[in-house]
């Protein structure tokens, strides 16, 4: 028995193929990128060790700063939208809806499974103005708000807001389901006891529900933050980062630097920067969880 479960050859057969693929496609590239971020130029042509100066260069690069600022504003709006609306929806499932609960949940989760590219293309048609009004503009005309018709994706601010709206629209159902599962896990006698003590509505939410939801809220926040910090596909599919660079995210700028301008070193540095952002925010949020627990 023990001999069989210690069989070294069998362990190798079970682990080695996966370990090699994983090493090759995930582990080594991460280390490799980190190493590249200390160089400038293109390997084999003008590759030069520059230490940390790529990271210093970012802060005087106007396009980087623009993308960084836009990315931060996007993160702030979309995280609040996704997690906040997700929480509200879950409360709605829990206390508001009696019939058709499953159907409502199935519908709300639906956009989550759609390909981001398809959603982006769909929204770009919804907010289209040429050669003909898309869904949104044509509905405005129908409602007699014809003078509100405008090129939503052709103006920096409105394009940015459409992008935020789209990504909240896609993901809020996902968070709603997670919060709902957590709400169902709260023992009913706790909620009943609070009712008897006269806690209703807002007080019930503040003193009973939210404290029990704290761990799951942090998990959702981490997921939402890391997802929005690295946003790429949705912006590319909706606006290609435009108009101008209005919706160009950090990840897109990393991609352009690397593959359009052949700056592998600088591109890697931006990729590492995004990874650091994700690690820091995860560590901070985990720290918050730990300090509250103790």
């Amino acid at each position, binding site marked *: 028995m023990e001999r069989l*479960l210690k069989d070294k050859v*069998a362990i190798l057969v*079970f682990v080695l193929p996966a370990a090699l693929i*994983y090493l090759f496609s995930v582990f080594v590239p991460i280390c490799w*990128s980190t190493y590249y971020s200390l160089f400038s130029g293109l390997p084999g042509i003008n590759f030069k060790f520059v230490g940390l100066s790529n990271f210093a260069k970012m802060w005087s690069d106007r396009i980087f700063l623009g993308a960084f600022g836009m990315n931060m504003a996007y993160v702030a709006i979309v995280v609040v939208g996704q997690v906040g609306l997700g929480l509200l929806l879950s409360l709605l499932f829990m206390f508001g809806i009696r019939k058709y609960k499953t159907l409502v949940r199935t519908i709300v989760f639906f956009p989550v*499974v759609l390909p981001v590219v398809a959603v982006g293309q769909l929204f770009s048609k919804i907010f289209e103005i040429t050669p003909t009004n898309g*869904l949104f503009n044509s509905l405005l005309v129908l409602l007699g708000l014809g003078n509100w018709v405008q090129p939503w994706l052709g103006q920096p601010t409105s394009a940015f807001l459409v992008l935020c709206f789209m990504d909240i629209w896609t993901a809020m159902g996902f968070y709603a389901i997670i919060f709902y599962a957590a709400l169902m896990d709260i023992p009913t006698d706790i909620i009943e006891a609070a009712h008897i003590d006269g806690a209703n509505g807002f007080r019930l939410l503040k003193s009973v529900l939210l404290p029990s939801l704290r761990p799951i809220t942090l998990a959702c926040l981490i997921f939402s933050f890391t997802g929005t910090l690295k946003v790429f596909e949705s912006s590319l599919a909706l606006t290609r980062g435009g108009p101008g660079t209005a919706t160009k995210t950090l990840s897109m700028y990393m991609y352009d630097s690397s*593959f359009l301008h052949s700056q592998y070193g600088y591109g890697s540095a931006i990729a590492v920067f995004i990874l650091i952002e994700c690690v820091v925010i995860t560590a901070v949020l985990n720290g918050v969880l730990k300090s509250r627990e103790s």
Partner: protein
Amino acid sequence: MNNSKLGSRLTSLLFKVFVVLFLALELYPIIWMLLSSFKATQEFTQNPSYSLPEGFYFQNYVDAWTTGKMGIFFKNSLITTVVSLVFIVLFSTSVSFALVKMHWKLRNAALSFFMSGIMVPVTIVLIPLFSMYKELHLLNTYWSLIITYTGFGLALSVFLISSYMRSMPDELIEAAVIDGCSIYKVFWKVVVPLSMNAIVTVLVIQFFFRWNDMLFSMTFISRTAMKTVQTGLLYFSDEWGNKNWGAIFAAISIGVMPTLGLYAALNKLVIDGMTAGAVKG
């Protein structure tokens, strides 16, 4: 009827209206897309966008599938997704078995190794992988995508399957060993069938992740004939621009169809699987 009763009736009605409006906001864009994919070209310019199609103009789908090459993109997506799913399931099940049920020194280190990539932003591996595949002449091949999809599918899948296996009683394995099974037979005849629940969850989650991939496909594939559905859609709208809306809507609908079908058939499984993946991951 007294005032407070009337008031609560009114709130409840308002509430219902709100819920219905909200669900409409979630569903209407998708319904609009499907309806628009059946509109003839002149309908887009003559009628407002919200109007219903005048008939079922299937030519859009024919155009998208043949002239628009969606048929080719679809085939490419199907091959890369299915092959990588096979590898992901095979590898993550065997690794999990070795990690959870077998006894060896480095198994904790191996677990952390596989978990290390669970939340890594994809952008960070693009340059190294692009360089490697270029050296190995794997750019514009199925293998570039299959290898990457498999590697990136492993972390979460190993995590989900190994947590599931931990609750599997060791007695079943012992009984099989006493019956004289080899370790490979134990794995194949006992452990795999018992892990089916976790395997199905992994299959479903990974199908969505791999089918919906755009970043790897747009980095490693530049030849039109090798593009997958997602990058094909981008190419498609660039090529066709604003000329043929009907075909664009048909193409988007084709790209959405497999996910839509799978979700319609297995919605509870999909919801449970995807949320479990996020919360635990």
